[in-house]
């Protein structure tokens, strides 16, 4: 296992003539929680789209685990390799129950490879982690916004991912829910897992992030600890100061 979970190298993504990501390079290590922040339209979601195989870059590579360039892999192959992602807009299956979501997240076959008791145990364990034990039999479509966010986190968590990407996990949550989510994210840290969090809530970022990458117009503006980010002039100008 390499120390670097994700190595983004000279990445460029274009929509027409517009560069959403512009020659971006960054490295994310196992064991860390990396926050990616930046103003609206900075390219944060686009970066996650490339890593999860939804958007094809114009140039550059994304090396997973130091060895595999995943920029040409399909979304499902990337997910099976252990990279999982929560979307900015909570994406759950409205017609399925909470438990069904976790069952789908825990396994990738049309028929489950885990035997029934093992799967049930795993589901209960994940529901406990994300605090949805009581909601197990409810349909996702009936859940409130906060519960949907946690359900999606639980679903991407269920497979024990090596790289976990969370796009705005606390958007629209109450302070209390944000606090719970912060504790959840910290509890997910493991030496063999990298966690990437995109977020606008700076207090939340401060609580969870080991390092922060500031994106601006598709490039890295700054990288370092949250204290240094707050102190950096350029960052304050484009983002925090507004």
């Amino acid at each position: 296992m390499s120390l670097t979970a994700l190595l983004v190298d000279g990445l460029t993504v274009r929509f027409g003539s517009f560069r959403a990501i512009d020659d971006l390079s960054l490295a994310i290590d196992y064991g860390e929680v990396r926050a990616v922040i930046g103003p609206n339209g900075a390219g944060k979601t686009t970066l996650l789209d490339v890593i999860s195989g939804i958007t094809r870059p114009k140039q550059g590579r994304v090396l997973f685990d130091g060895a595999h360039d995943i920029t040409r892999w399909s979304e499902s192959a990337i997910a099976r390799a252990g990279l999982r992602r929560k979307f900015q807009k909570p994406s759950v299956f409205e017609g399925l129950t909470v438990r069904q979501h976790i069952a789908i997240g825990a396994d990738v076959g049309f028929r489950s490879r885990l035997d029934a008791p093992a799967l049930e145990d795993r589901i209960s364990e994940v529901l406990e982690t994300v605090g949805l034990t009581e909601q197990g039999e409810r349909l996702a479509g009936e859940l409130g916004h906060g519960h949907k966010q946690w359900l999606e986190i639980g679903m991407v968590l269920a497979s024990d991912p090596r790289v976990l990407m969370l796009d705005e996990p606390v958007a629209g949550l109450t302070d209390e829910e944000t606090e719970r989510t912060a504790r959840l994210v910290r509890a997910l840290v493991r030496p063999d897992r990298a966690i990437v969090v995109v977020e606008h809530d700076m207090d939340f970022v401060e609580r969870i992030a080991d390092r922060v990458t500031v994106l601006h117009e598709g490039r890295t503006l700054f990288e370092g600890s949250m204290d240094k980010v707050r102190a950096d002039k350029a960052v304050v100008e484009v983002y925090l100061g507004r």
Partner: protein
Amino acid sequence: MTPITRDRPFLLLVALLVMLSVAMPLLSGTGLAPSRYLTNAIGQLAAFAVLALSLDLIWGYLGILSLGHGLFFAIGGYVVAMYLLKHSFVVTGTVPDFLQFMGWKEFPFYWAGFEFFPYAFGVAVAVTLLISGVFGYVSFRSRVGGVYFAIITQALVYVAMLLMFRNDTGFGGNNGMTGFSVILGWPMGTSGMITALAVASLVTLALVLVGCRWLVGSRFGALMLATRDDETRLRTLGYETLRLKLIVWCLSALLAMLAGMLYVPQVGIINPRVLSPELSLEIAVWVAIGGRGHLVGAVIGALLVNALKFWLSSAAPDVWPFILSGLIVLVVLVFPNGLMDLAKFRLARPMGPKRMETKRMARGIGEARS
């Protein structure tokens, strides 16, 4: 999803189908037996119900609307018609009308072997799988979905209709095929045969219903619903939705084919009009009215709309198209889940889930995810 053992509407419907299948042969010959006309109508409706289920499987449960399912229905229908004509010819020596009409002395070479039912059946399966497989693979691979897919399927069935209208293809051309006199060695048109065909349709319907219920209740069924609700989400969880869609699409095509095989011996004729875009649209109306994503609803929808059509097409044939369009508008605007919405009204369920369903309906017909 409710466990099978507590799914009351489903269990009731299966019980009803089983009872009918047992009662009809037992009563035949007694005064209590349904008339030949009614028996035949029941059999045809059962075939339509199978067709409705085939569409509900991919539209209701997978979110893929096909407006060309008449194509697969027609494959089943045409193949069984070829079997019936060839078989009748072998048994009775009757030369089919269309051969005489074309002035042909013998069957075209590709009719060889069609007098054997297993062979004909195999050909129907193979052709259905080939067409649905290639078409599905190409479309799903390039991620064509939503309205675009629906329109392409409609075009496909239309092209097939134009092809079958040609008289030189050796499939009966514009007059189609009729004059079936023997099936599996037995004469057709007797009361016994009418009952037997109706029972075969009812039994098939019951089996298909149970099979579909098992499928949608399984893990695979949950993945179907997940694909319908958010395909990208499912793909980024590691699932090959292309394979899943292809499997269900081909299965659905096979069920439609089966419906065609049951239908044609009972109406005694097939012609290119089964390939008309209207028929394919109508199947979607049956399912929409019954309630997409509800197997029992699809069956009831098929029965209701066709009963209405049988009745109106004799009582007031001119208004039928207007009634049909009116029903479509009503379903789209007021009851996005068809009869299932009516049932919910009665139970006075809260608004939340309904609004959610409305959104899903819009996605089902409107939106195409690229």
